[in-house]
């Protein structure tokens, strides 16, 4: 566990002895689970190249028992992880929405996702099984209405408070001068690996991981 201003954060730290350190902003919701293995392998590949990494579970995610209040809440906890350190950030998918957009922080974004598309995906993950089970077309209207009434909702196993839904609805990944984007075009580093975040049964992607690690290595020179 890592101690931060806001309490302990479960985290895997690898390669602490390296000069170069990367903080990992993981994908959100179910994508985090699907990308867990990918990121674990990426951290190993980075370690082999002399780059240490911190893979932390933010509030509302993974093994972090603290409930998430809002995107700002996640952002604050994440910021505490790099306070006082000269680390860079690697963000994957919705993780790109987490680092403070105003922080002068070099960030590497892999396949960044907009908050809106993540929200639609989450709502759909609930409404399709709902429909299967009940035969009725529930749709996302009910959940949207709940948020508008200031109520949190439980979607596909995730508790989503209205502040988080609102922030996601309007968030796009922050780029900036010290930002490098990898993924399908348009990207600084075009890489076409398997979309493990979409796969119910994610495949191994050793070539994609090696290519990313090499590009990060060069970026972090």
């Amino acid at each position: 566990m890592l101690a931060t201003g806001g309490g302990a954060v479960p985290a895997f730290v690898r390669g602490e002895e390296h000069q170069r350190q990367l903080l990992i902003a993981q994908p959100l919701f179910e994508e985090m689970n699907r990308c867990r293995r990918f990121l674990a392998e990426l951290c190993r590949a980075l370690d082999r190249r002399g780059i240490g990494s911190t893979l932390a579970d933010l509030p509302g995610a993974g093994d972090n028992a603290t409930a998430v209040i809002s995107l700002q809440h996640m952002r604050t906890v994440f910021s505490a992880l790099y306070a006082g350190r000269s680390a860079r950030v690697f963000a994957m998918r919705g993780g790109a929405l987490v680092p403070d957009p105003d922080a002068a922080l070099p960030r590497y974004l892999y396949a960044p996702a907009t908050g809106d598309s993540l929200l639609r995906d989450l709502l759909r993950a609930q409404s399709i099984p709902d429909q299967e089970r009940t035969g009725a077309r529930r749709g996302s209207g009910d959940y949207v209405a709940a948020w508008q009434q200031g109520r949190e909702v439980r979607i596909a196993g995730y508790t989503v408070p209205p502040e988080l839904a609102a922030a996601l609805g309007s968030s796009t990944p922050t780029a900036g001068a010290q930002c490098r984007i990898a993924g399908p075009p348009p990207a600084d580093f075009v890489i076409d690996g398997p979309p493990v975040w979409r796969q119910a049964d994610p495949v191994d992607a050793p070539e994609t991981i090696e290519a990313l690690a090499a590009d990060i290595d060069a970026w972090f020179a």
Partner: protein
Amino acid sequence: MLNECGMMATAQSDRDAAGGDVTAQLRRVLADVLSLEPAVAAALCEDSGLFGHLPELDSMAVAGLLTEIEDRFGIIIDDDEIDGELFATFGSLAGFVRAKVVA
């Protein structure tokens, strides 16, 4: 050159409006999201059964597949457009996507 479906895969048909492109792109989307064997993906044609026929396409996979289709084709799929018929065959899905792309 004939592909698995006995269709002429010529440069002309590839350039045919959105039609040929959608079919090829959709095969790639299904292959990527469902981790299909290349041979299985290449064999998908209009009459190929999807839901209930492709074991990889279960209800857990449907949501992710729809979102990936939205992202790759730049379209939005509303809740009320999703019904059992959409994933009946590769043809029904491709037809749906084609109509959305041109709209």
